[in-house]
């Protein structure tokens, strides 16, 4: 029987604020998994701390709600011990780019085959609206005592220079677009990064739904001029098909990643499946790794004796 988005629901009460972008993200994720036909028990949703970390229990899949900032190493540990699992990683901008920035960068160096959804709303919601690492310098959202004193991190650019092999951006209220991005991310071989622009109706009164959708700037006919636009609609090819193309495609993606303000691109910025995944690299050293990964190995026989033999190791230290 085909899977439906509702197969991924739990009874757990969804406790986000009315109008939160998280609802769109949750819906898109359920749709994407259903369309990909991923059985719930094969999926592990690993999430960080904050409002963005809660989907781990709103989804009827294995949910691992981790520590603030540590979502990536938890997920990498799960995936590399059992590469047969489908890993969805979800966390906020503060989680991934503030307290977890070191892991964000280092995950790029490894290229573990997972999909990382980063909720970007510019604020720390659960602690009542402090500036997140993606809030721009000088911006004063409504609960900040003073305008933001830090420059913002550029999530797509950071992902690209860190080595992520798939970088895309979507918008929480473009559910179908987001669903497509998630599907592409899951199908991508390697670490896929998807930045999701997400209004926070409670604490971010600058980057609002109206702002993203251009309701503050109408054309002559009174029609809003959205700030967001889709890369699909312009001549832009993000896919690296030959190693020789890599520098050029990377530079093009970085240029696109710098666009902000009046024009904010959505879609796939960069995709490169020519880079080996971390799992492939382990398999180069341990030939049976993918077939018989750590989680699947038989460690004892019927009597409980360890399958590992030690004599060859003792012999290395033998002095008799």
């Amino acid at each position: 029987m085909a899977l439906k988005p509702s197969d991924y629901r739990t009874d757990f009460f969804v406790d986000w604020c009315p109008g939160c972008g998280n609802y769109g993200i949750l819906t898109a994720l359920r749709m994407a998994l259903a369309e990909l036909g991923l059985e719930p028990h094969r999926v592990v949703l690993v999430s960080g701390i904050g409002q963005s970390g809660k989907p781990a229990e709103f989804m009827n899949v294995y949910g691992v709600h981790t520590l603030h900032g540590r979502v990536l190493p938890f997920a990498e540990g799960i995936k590399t011990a059992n590469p047969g699992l489908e890993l969805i990683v979800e966390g906020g901008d503060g989680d991934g780019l503030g307290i977890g920035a070191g892991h964000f960068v280092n995950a790029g160096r490894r290229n573990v085959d997972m999909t990382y959804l980063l909720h970007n709303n510019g604020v720390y919601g659960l602690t009542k609206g402090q500036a997140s690492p993606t809030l721009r310098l000088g911006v004063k959202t409504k609960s900040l005592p003073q305008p933001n004193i830090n420059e913002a991190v550029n999530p797509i650019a950071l992902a690209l220079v860190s080595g992520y092999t798939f970088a895309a951006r979507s918008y929480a209220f473009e559910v179908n677009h987001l669903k497509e991005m998630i599907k592409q991310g899951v199908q991508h071989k390697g670490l896929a990064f998807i930045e999701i622009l997400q209004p926070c109706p409670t604490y971010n009164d600058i980057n609002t739904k109206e702002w993203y959708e251009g309701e503050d700037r109408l054309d002559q006919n009174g029609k809003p001029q959205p700030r967001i636009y889709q890369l699909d609609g312009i001549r832009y090819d993000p896919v690296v098909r030959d190693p020789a193309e890599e520098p050029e495609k990377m530079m093009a993606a970085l240029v696109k990643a710098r666009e902000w303000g009046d024009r904010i691109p959505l879609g796939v910025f960069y995709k490169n499946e020519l880079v080996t995944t971390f799992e492939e690299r382990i398999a180069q050293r341990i030939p049976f790794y993918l077939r018989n990964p750590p989680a699947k190995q038989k460690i004892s026989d019927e009597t409980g004796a360890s399958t590992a033999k030690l004599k060859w190791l003792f012999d290395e230290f033998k002095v008799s």
Partner: protein
Amino acid sequence: MAGGPQGSGIDSAASIFARACGYGGLYIYGKREYHSNIKGLHSYFHMRISSREVSANVNDVNLLAAFDAETVVRHINEVVPGGAIIVDKDKLDTKALEIPSLDPEFRERLREHLEKTGLEDSLNALLEEARKAGVHVIPVPYLELMNQIAKQAGMELSKVTRTINVLTVGISFGLLNYDESLVEKAVRATFSDKPEVAEMNVVALREAYNYAKKSFPEGIGYKLEKNGMGENRLFLQGHQAVALGKVLGGCRVQTYYPITPAQDESEFLETHEILRTGTDGEEGSVVVIQTEDELAAITWAIGAALTGARAATSTSGPGFSLMVEGLGWAGNNEVPIVITYYQRGAPSTGLPTRHGQDDLRFAIHASHGDFPRIVLASGDIRECFYDAAKAFNYAERYQVPVIHLTDKALANSSQTYAFFDTAQYSIQRGSILGETDLQGEEYKRFRFTESGVSPRVFLGTKNGVSWLTGNEHNEFGHRSEDSVNRTQMVEKRMKKLETIDKEIPVEEKVNFFGNENAENMIVSWGSPKGAILEALGRLTQEGFNLGFIQARMIHPLPEDYLAEKLRRAERIIDVEMNYLGQFGGVLREKTGIPTDFHILKYNGRPMTTTEVYNALKSVLSGQAPKRQVLNYGA
């Protein structure tokens, strides 16, 4: 004792020396001391040779092999009358105070000594003083020997200078009149992967050995003779024993961030990542991951453990400080992980390459919130092996993080043992549910049970979808702040401590030595074991009534058992390597029984038998203060 600048081959010299002794049926105990430095600062290997198993050093040095002048200056006072010092003939005029790598504090003490004794500042003068005290001084023309070796081996002198370590080994064995063929075998074994280097070193060895025999035909008063041997023996360091124990215990994922002295264990595992397993087509591997920091090391290991792989991480104090948040998550989510914790001295960066046992309280209490954990402490290299394997059984049976405490002294000491017996270990995985067990009823990961242990599923198991969270949670693993659930859930988790206490036999938690009903009872934990045991043997022979309790599981502590033992004792003597007497404190907290005497040490160097013996004897003779602080070791 062999010493020289870091990077000059002390380790290889020690390895050759130990192997050569091993081939002759002799037992070795040795420890390595080094600075937090790559090249140039003083390091040394202090080794004891015996016809039976030994597991601690003594203060006295019988033979000091110095690669450089600094080694002589630093250790000359440790050499006993009748002992010998091998020294570079060309270095005799060295002015000790001008050796640039001496610490300022040491230099100052040396200056005072020279002023007090009126000695001239030269190596020669210091050696002359030793000679008067009955020490043999053996000046060796290293450069001359190297020139000859270069000629013989047809190599450039610059390459041959690296054989200085083997030269000292050759001189030493020549002076001791030991069977040269065994030393040659040891040289070849040590350089087995580099035949050319092995060849050059064999030439060097012969040259040095023959030089010693020819130039000092009367030897130095000590002789080293072969011993009988009817078994397979190994000679290994503590970190290697831990790695072997992990292999036996079914470890499949090991994570780490480089930190002294823990990193060697992970590197050993990575070198041996493909295991040899049974004959029926089984495959085994340990995937070793070097993470970006310890925050990632522990969380990566937790993730791996959730899939059913036995997973561990390895670190020392500064790394464990970072791991604490992960530890709490594992405790809250009842994840079986093993943390091997090599203690070193002092807070912060502290003494990166020196020894201490300062972290017992930290291991027991680290992290906010109450949750159960197990803290094990190994007392010697053999225990490092078995405890490393057992830690996985405890972790999985009780679904708790297990902290396996070892320390720098164990990590970098080496000892000769008969091959370890792997048959006495079996793998116990605790309660695990598979796909077919889960049909029907809705699965609750944190089901309330009598023992506190809830059957576990591995991530990915069909019919077992469930949730984990760092928040307090209900039986399903969903966040819950409900007050009734909170009480039940804390009690469920903490119940496991009682279950552990009840189920694990006391013989696995405590070692008992000497007279069980003794009026004088030593209590200790971890690496002082070797020194204490030997002192205990000597004092018992002298007629003292003495027992020794070595705690191996310190949390949960088998408190009723210990209370009963301690109640009978008149004097309880706490021996450990920290300022506070942390274990004595834990013992008092859990049993209500205070320790009467403390023998403590925190200078960064492990306890020797000599100093433990002296300190214990002064307690037993009624002459000791309540607190004695030991200081031996350069």
